[in-house]
């Protein structure tokens, strides 16, 4: 510990929590939205830099916080996407103010909530205590609920309410699971806080009562799975994505889903550590396939562009769940890679969609046509982004899908077929919608995009490069984590 601190002047983990928390309070006080937007970006940048410092920090597992390879992957990714999103939102939200959809007061609230959400998510990722993790995820849910309802339209409230109710039930189930985990641990590690410290549980997992652990996992899978948006628990996701401000859609798809997934993975590790338990793999694969196929079909009937990509998020979460459920070094690697790529690509897509909705003044797919003609840069950017998310090369998604499909077919041929069918289904729907959006005679609405394309460009560049070349340290790290995930 001391040597570690000597190596690094400070311990980054608490800082990562402190910055957004403080920023949240601060932003709640700043009146001018320009200042607050700038502050928001600054805070996110700081957080991201500190998160990078984590890479050098020692892997610690204290009573409150834990830093291991698994959550570093998530933390760095989260803070990065949060940072780019804040840049996007700074240029985006101003326009909302001009069009009068929002008031300065709203923006104050919005920025405060943004930071609060980040704080909550980072806490969920870093906390070593399962109870704290649960509380953090609940707080994250509440903040996003408030932001989804930000526009106060009938539809927005409807969406927020749906999200809220389903989220609360999910939270409740997750809590029951957490309690059960404690009860499993309590006879082994004794009463008191230790029974909820993940690192402690991992050490003693072999002595736990497997049957009760199974029950616990069922509740946790359903509880946090609701947050991940796995079918049939996904109902809140499309509406929440389509009715909230676009940056929030990006954050939801790019970050919150990952955080919930992370929670599921933590418990999967716990299950994997005990030989006697019911293998969590089949459950995750089943729900993953269900999400994939359901989303694949749902995509065809979409009329709202944001809801379209929300369903695509469900599809990809299904893929990731399937990958982790399949297990094995290759599939887990594919899962991690796919999760990273999905976060980057999907947030990039939502950036583009945000611009599109602003220039076209609508979210209806029917009214968005011929973008490559009316807004070449934006249009082709969207084409690239959608091609990337659809798994066309040279995007990193292609690599993860390649690894996933090949290894799945090698090990479980009969699962690979529905997997491939789902992929093709979703691909078809996305491409069909894309052809309408990007090509043909342009629809009215051709005013310039004021916001900057930078965040989108950065994300897409990363994604495209990833398909061709992954830096060795990243690979080694992913492979290690993949090994951990068993």
């Amino acid at each position, binding site marked *: 510990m001391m040597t570690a601190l000597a190596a690094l002047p400070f311990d980054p983990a608490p800082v990562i929590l402190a910055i957004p928390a403080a920023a949240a309070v601060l932003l709640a006080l700043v009146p001018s939205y320009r200042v607050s937007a700038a502050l928001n970006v600054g805070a996110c940048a700081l957080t991201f830099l500190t998160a990078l410092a984590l890479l050098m920090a020692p892997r610690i597992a204290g009573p409150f916080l834990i830093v291991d390879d698994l959550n570093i992957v998530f933390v760095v990714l989260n803070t990065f996407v949060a940072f780019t999103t804040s840049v996007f939102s700074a240029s985006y939200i101003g326009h909302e103010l001009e069009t009068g959809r929002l008031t300065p007061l709203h923006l104050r609230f919005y920025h405060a909530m943004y930071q609060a959400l980040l704080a909550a998510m980072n806490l969920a990722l870093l906390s070593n205590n399962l109870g704290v993790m649960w509380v953090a995820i609940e707080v994250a849910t509440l903040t996003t609920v408030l932001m989804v309802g930000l526009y106060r339209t009938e539809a927005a409230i409807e969406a927020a309410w*749906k999200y809220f*109710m*389903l989220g609360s*039930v*999910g939270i409740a*189930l997750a809590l029951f699971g957490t309690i059960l985990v404690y009860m499993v641990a309590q006879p082994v590690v004794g009463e008191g806080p230790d029974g909820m410290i993940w690192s402690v549980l991992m050490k003693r997992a072999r002595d736990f009562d497997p*049957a009760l652990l*199974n*029950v616990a996992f*069922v509740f946790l*899978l*359903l509880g946090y799975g*609701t947050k991940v948006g796995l079918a*049939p*628990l996904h*109902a*809140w996701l499309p509406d929440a994505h389509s009715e909230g401000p676009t940056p929030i859609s990006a954050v939801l798809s790019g970050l919150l889903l990952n955080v919930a997934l992370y929670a599921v993975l933590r418990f999967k590790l716990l299950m994997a550590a005990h030989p006697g338990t*019911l293998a969590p793999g089949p*459950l995750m694969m089943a729900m993953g396939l269900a999400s994939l196929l*359901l989303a694949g*079909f*749902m995509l*065809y*009937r979409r009329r709202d562009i944001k809801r379209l990509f929300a369903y695509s998020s469900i599809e990809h979460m299904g893929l990731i769940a399937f990958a982790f459920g399949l297990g094995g070094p*290759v599939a887990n690697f594919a899962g991690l890679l796919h999760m990273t790529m999905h976060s980057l690509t999907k947030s990039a897509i939502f950036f583009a969609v945000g611009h599109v909705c602003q220039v076209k003044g609508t979210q209806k797919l029917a009214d968005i046509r011929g973008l*490559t003609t009316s807004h*070449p840069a934006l249009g082709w950017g969207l084409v690239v982004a959608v091609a990337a998310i*659809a*798994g*066309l*090369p*040279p995007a990193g998604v*292609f*690599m993860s899908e*390649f690894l996933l*499909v*090949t*290894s*799945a*077919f*090698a090990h479980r041929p009969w699962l*690979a077929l529905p997997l*491939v069918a789902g*992929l*093709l*289904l979703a*691909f*078809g729907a996305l*491409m*069909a919608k894309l*052809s*309408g959006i990007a*090509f*043909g*005679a342009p629809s009215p609405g051709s005013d310039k995009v004021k916001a900057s394309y930078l965040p989108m460009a950065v994300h897409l560049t990363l994604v495209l490069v990833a398909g*061709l*070349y*992954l830096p*060795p340290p990243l690979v080694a790290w992913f*492979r290690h984590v993949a090994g951990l995930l068993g």
Partner: protein
Amino acid sequence: MSEAAFATRLLLNGQLLVALVAVVALLALGLLGVAMASRPAGRSLIYGGALAVTLVAGLSALTAIAAPPAGIVLPLGIPWIGAHLRLDALSAFFLAVVNLGGAAASLYGLGYGRHDHAPARVLPFFPAFLAGMNMVLLADDAYTFLLSWEFMSLASWALVVAHDKEAGNVRAGLVYILMASFGTLALMLAFGLLAAGSGGGYAFDAMREAPPVGIAAALVLALAMLGAGSKAGLVPLHVWLPLAHPAAPSHVSALMSGVMTKVAVYGFIRIVLDLSGPPDWWWGIPVLAAGGVAAVIGVLQALLQNDIKRVLAYSTIENIGLVFVGLGLALAFSANGFPAAAALALTAALFHVLNHAAMKSLLFFGAGAVLTATGTRQMEDLGGLIHRMPVTSAVMLIGCAAISALPPLNGFASEWLVFQAVLLSPDLPAWGLRLMVPAVGALMALAAALAAACFVRLYGIAFLGRARSPNAAEAHEVDAFSRAAMIALAAVCVGAGLLPGLFIDALQPAVAGLIGETMPSQRSVAWLSIIPVAESRSSYNALLVFGFSAVSALIAAVVIHRFASRAVRRAPPWDCGFPNASPLAQYSAASFAQPIRRVFARGLFAARETVEMPPPGALTPARISTSARDPAWAFLFLPLTAAVGAVAERANKLQYLTIRQYLGLVFSALVLLLLVLALWT
């Protein structure tokens, strides 16, 4: 073996280096295209650059056919595998085809591109497309292969939707990208099996060392047929092809039809003949069947089309069918222990690959020339172009004769070889094959005859007779670049037709690499004729036949002009008592196809013709309207899409449940899982 593989892997020879540089250069040109698209100089820069690069790459690939294989591993792609690249005889041959075809297309583009109204949507993707095809041929591990394969599809898709304002192009692009992705997924599964056999090694070397066995091998064959077949245009996976190929700009159509389908053939050969180990005795059967069916259905559909480029696209399906017949024979022979015969069949297939690349590119260039000159692709609006566009119509005549397999041109040479291979097949032990092969031979013969009919129709309607529209009457010959490209390809058609022996010999390294046996060398044969097996058995000398008939034609002409009359008088054609009939009174494309439509297309294609005859005395012309369907759409894809739509409609109800009902879903999921736990022990 492994040491050998390793040794070759590290060896980087000049040709491979050239190929790599070419790929990089083409990609760079693509990026440059993004920047230069708007400038006028951009066109000549991009096409000129592509021409130079592909020409060099193609020539160096030609020299690489006979060279020992070379390979290299780059730190790209899947991290723990790396990007394996390899240049052996087979890939070298296909590289030559791809790049020379690409060179011709670039040359053509130099002139043709001038008429393109949306260069910004073509220039960046054209070199990228070429680069993608090159990468596929160089790839030596599954990931690199599929990445390049899909990249090729993506680039060509962008080119298909380049003119997205024209009706149907976007839909064509959609169908294309869907089928392409289907094929890629099929190949992904195939590679999954191959890799599983070799313990997760995605490199082709690893796969070669542990080929699949039994059911796995059969699955690989099936998946390869689905994957490569969907790209090559095997029936019934061909539906995208007649939509997409015509939609693209003509020089791109030429690339897609003439060259990209060959890359698909390469993929099939690589997977089935190289990676899947020794074939089973029956492997030939499905391949032969697919080939024969594709040949006949393709050419029949071609006969029913009125759009020149669609005719050409369907005829591509026919020729791909012929190639697959050759491959099927090669599989059957090599599986049943007749390597020599297998070598003959494979040579025939590869030779036809080369020939079709040349002819079909030539024909698409011609179609493009007609399009620029008249602004239409509809045969019904053309006619009499032979007077307006002498060069184009001359080279088109060569192209049509070649693809109709007329001696002494190249189409006949390769088809003749396939027939010779068919005639060797009675030696095959398996009954299934014995019944199969002659039937497929008959299908081939039928396809050949129908192809002749098809191109008589194409050429006769579009280039002969009288102009059917003002545009056709006003047509002008196209620019020098386009003419040069077409003449070059026509020269290839004639050359390969007259001297097939040289080409056959050049192919042997590739054949030997796959079959382990070669055809007898043709260089030694007297009079440059070709003898596939033995002289007593069969031989063919195009040069002699050509000279023979040329001389006799000359003699006849000289004698007649010298001793009989040479007088010529121009007069109106015999009008049967109805003076100055309008050009519309000529036989139209639809009416020309009528007999064949009635004979062949009634049942499967549901070809119908309705004649609306005006009442006596009315001045309105009588109209005949014809309709035909593509069975693949009717019986496979439309029902499929309908099914997906229906399920989607059902599933869509889930979007409109109430919160209570959603909670119900969660609840039932919970209860279900708890029940599972309760029952699970």
